[in-house]
């Protein structure tokens, strides 16, 4: 409950039309089914929802919360359990009204945006001036600001456009106290061209490998790097996703590259990186393509063992790569290089130019990262085993290990059999490091699948620890509690910083520093023991990890 007095202050902060405590409104915010592995799709209901339109209003909302001992939790586009409150005394700040592209600096290749600008919007505007923006794999519906400041940030353009966290050039931040600060050059009033300094970089308190997920104030503006776009101001296209047909710009070539085995595929990745070619690159198991494009057909065919072998095996080691050239000569060179590399590693290329409809479909879908949303088609939901980004080899190994775990659960029908390892594997920054997460579809409306998803997640955590990885899903309080002592005690330090910058702990810390016990209900005893043994063996002492 929120007191009348507190509510009135929220109204004064954002206007009466932009705050609500009606149960039906609150429930529309308490509904957070994605990555919610509980049987019902709710998170704790906020006590009020406020919709600020300016940084000043955000500040006033937070100050009002602080005066009344209420916590606050902000989101941008609001997709995922982590966007909702984790306790019962939270004011939800919906940043939807802060939706402006403040500036696109064409020359210096950056954009300053507010939280509710989505990836598709920013890309559409950037392309008009020959630039492009990194769009995360979750899709163009997501907020680039939220990704860069608060979440993860991988996308299939990462080969050319990096990782969201590394694209920040400046930040406006309403601290948990309600004070407004700017990081980097904008903090000194010098422009939005550098997010670090003077001296130590407070960007390091903003986020690390993951973000604070709303647990450390509210980010109201960010300057993000934009990247060169050699194509037209708009990719002409008809249709929407599955049927989209685009005019493939002359500056692009699209190839599927298939290899006889994982090692050769990995070698090719490394060589492509050193050749510094590629604009967009994604390794996806071929069954996944069929699954998202034709789910009914997929269901009919997945019992066919030969097909499983063909798609998951023979054609399984493949990636799709888009080359972008600034001239015909440049593009031709990249094509020559790609073909030579694939050839050297005994692979073959499928040139989308020879299958015009395929190329026409993939161009827009990949450049705008639109296809991942289709993963919902097979089961209504999906979850993912998020590994810890590092070398390409590590990530490919993670993909294999997780695929093996998945197969067991699929066989027991505790998740949906997707007939392949279904990794979302993307290389970063000229293939110098990489990301791999392994997607598994399930139906969150099925009790059996829910039980499966909580059990499989435990196996992922165990495997991550065995593979020396801090999994990205360590944002869950129970995982954090287990992982922190094995991982530089990071949460101890995170919490100290949190307490220093948020002395009254007014931001909702559920997905940032809170810890909780695991629910082992659906986990076999031997797995629980394995986890406990790993924790015992790998817990840091004051001299570091046991070597």
């Amino acid at each position, binding site marked *: 409950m929120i007191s009348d007095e507190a509510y009135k202050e929220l109204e004064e902060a954002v206007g009466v039309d932009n705050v609500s405590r009606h149960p039906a409104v609150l429930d529309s915010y308490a509904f957070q089914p994605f990555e919610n592995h509980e049987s019902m799709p709710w998170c704790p209901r906020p006590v009020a929802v406020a919709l600020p339109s300016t940084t000043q209003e955000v500040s006033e909302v937070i100050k009002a919360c602080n005066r009344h001992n209420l916590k606050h939790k902000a989101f941008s586009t609001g997709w995922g359990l982590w966007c909702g409150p984790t306790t019962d005394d939270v004011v939800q700040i919906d940043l939807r009204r802060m939706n402006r*592209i403040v500036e696109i600096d064409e020359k210096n290749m950056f954009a300053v945006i507010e939280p509710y600008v989505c990836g598709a919007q920013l890309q559409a505007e950037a392309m008009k001036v020959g630039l492009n923006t990194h769009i995360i794999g979750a*899709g*163009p519906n997501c907020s680039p600001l939220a990704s860069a400041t608060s979440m993860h940030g991988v996308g299939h353009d990462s080969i050319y456009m990096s990782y969201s966290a590394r694209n920040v050039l400046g930040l406006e931040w309403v601290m948990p106290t309600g004070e407004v600060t700017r990081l980097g050059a904008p903090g000194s009033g010098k422009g939005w061209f550098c997010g670090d300094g003077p001296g130590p970089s407070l960007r390091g308190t903003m986020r690390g490998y993951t973000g604070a997920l709303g647990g450390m104030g509210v980010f109201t503006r960010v300057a993000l790097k934009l990247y060169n776009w050699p194509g037209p101001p708009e990719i002409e296209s008809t249709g929407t996703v599955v049927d989209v047909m685009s005019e493939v710009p002359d500056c692009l070539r699209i190839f599927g590259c298939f290899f006889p085995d994982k090692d050769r595929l990995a070698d090719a990745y490394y060589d492509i990186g050193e050749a510094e070619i590629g604009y967009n690159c994604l390794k996806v198991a071929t069954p996944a393509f069929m699954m998202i494009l034709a789910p009914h057909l997929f269901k009919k065919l997945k019992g066919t063992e030969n097909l499983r072998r063909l798609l998951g095996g023979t054609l399984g080691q493949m990636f799709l790569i888009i080359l972008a050239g600034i001239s015909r000569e440049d593009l031709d060179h990249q094509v020559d290089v790609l073909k030579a590399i694939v050839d050297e590693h005994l692979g073959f290329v499928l040139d989308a130019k020879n299958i015009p409809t395929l190329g026409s479909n993939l161009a827009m879908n990949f450049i705008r990262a639109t296809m991942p949303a289709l993963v919902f088609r097979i089961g209504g939901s999906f979850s993912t085993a998020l590994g810890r980004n590092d070398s390409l080899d590590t990530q490919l190994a993670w993909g294999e290990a997780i695929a093996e775990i998945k197969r067991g659960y699929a066989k027991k029908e505790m998740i949906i059999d997707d007939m392949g390892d279904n990794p979302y594997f993307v290389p970063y920054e000229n293939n110098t490091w990489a990301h791999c997460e392994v997607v598994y579809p399930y139906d969150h409306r099925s009790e059996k699948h829910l039980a499966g998803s909580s059990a499989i997640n435990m196996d992922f955590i165990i495997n991550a620890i065995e593979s020396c990885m801090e999994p990205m899903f360590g944002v869950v309080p129970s995982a954090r509690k287990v992982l922190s002592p094995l991982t530089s005690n990071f949460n101890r330090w995170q919490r100290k910083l949190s307490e220093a910058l948020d002395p009254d702990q007014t931001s909702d810390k559920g997905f940032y520093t809170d810890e909780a016990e695991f629910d082992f209900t659906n986990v076999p005893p031997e797995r629980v023991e394995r986890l406990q043994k790993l924790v015992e063996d790998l817990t840091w002492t004051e001299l570091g990890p046991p070597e």
Partner: protein
Amino acid sequence: MSLEDYRRDIEGCSRCSSCKWVPYNQIKSWRFSKNCPSIYRHNFHTYSGSGRMVIGLSLMEGRAELDETVAEMIFRCQLCGACDSACKTYRDDIDISEVLLELRSYCVESGELLVEHMAVIDSLKREGNSLGELKTARGDWARGLDVKDVNSETCDVLFHAGCRYSYDPDARETVRGDIQLLRSAGLDIGVAGVEEACCGGRAYELGYRGEASNYADDVLNRVKSSGAGTLVTACSDCYSHFQYIYPKIGKELPVEVLHVSQVMDRLIDNGRLDFKHELPLSVTYHDPCHLGRKGEPFTGVWTGDKLDRPMSLKRSGRKGIYDAPRNLLYAMPGVELVEMERIREYAWCCGAGGGVLEAFPDFSASTTVERIEEALATGAEALVTACPWCLRVFKDAVDQTSADLEVYDLADLALISAGVAQPASV
């Protein structure tokens, strides 16, 4: 069907917010990237397709109670279907539009009624139209036309004018012209005149299903008695209701149902209609929701798990009438079509639908202005549509905002180009 029948649809929502945006591959600018007038205006997630579905879940689970405020949240929506269509770009197992209709019915059955909607229903009951006009004046629009009266004669083609065309003085000439044009092309046409009544679709959308059913029966009987093989309507609303709601409630019409733009398109195709008069005009075309995404025919009921529903039964909005109106514009000499960014199944609504025009005129008007601004951004001289409801609100908005934009009914341009009407009005 009831709200409970859609529980699985609701629980299937991942809250990805795709229901709020133009399909991402078709987002062409920051400015015109949103698709839902309701959340665009009211901002709380509650006002989106997803948010309203959650209201349904909350009500079913007893977490929230239906009250006047909740009812208003439910009714502040044009039922334009953009959310449904956008969601189905990516999903197969959620029918948002159905949930929205069930919510309205739930409100009406629970006694949470809007006064303005009750007035509409009263008008329907008393006068057979949704506009509060006299039933006796229903057939005035056709007075003096050389056209059959289906109350006493049979015909091949029954022409249904609809409430707005029958009564709105700015629209009447259009349907008169339609009749002239179709007759000149050799069609054997009849009208019901004063006996024509509302199709009932508006009642269905407002949640008054009993009334809707009664009017459907009325139309069904008239169609049968007319001996017609084809029902043609100029009204997009009526078209959608004939094609979708009627079969859904078991009142499928036993004839081919066509919008007048489809008929003209066919006539051009088979050489019975020729656009020969030059119309030097750059236009942009507004897809009426009820002709476009909501004009997609009823595809049948699937009672199993919607994850397994055949694609042929998935109503995505993509099989609406988009090409026929454009074909007409392409065929008109001198007319240049410049598309807006939001077209076809992801078109922005005119603002008039779902009872919003009657109950929340400010909200309706702001939605209309948004479309006017989009039309102006194309640089076109005129905004053309194929629905009298859209036409009405566009004309009013242009008058009120003094926007430098002409507004035309597609049929009016066709009539001029075909030489049936004088170009003076253009």
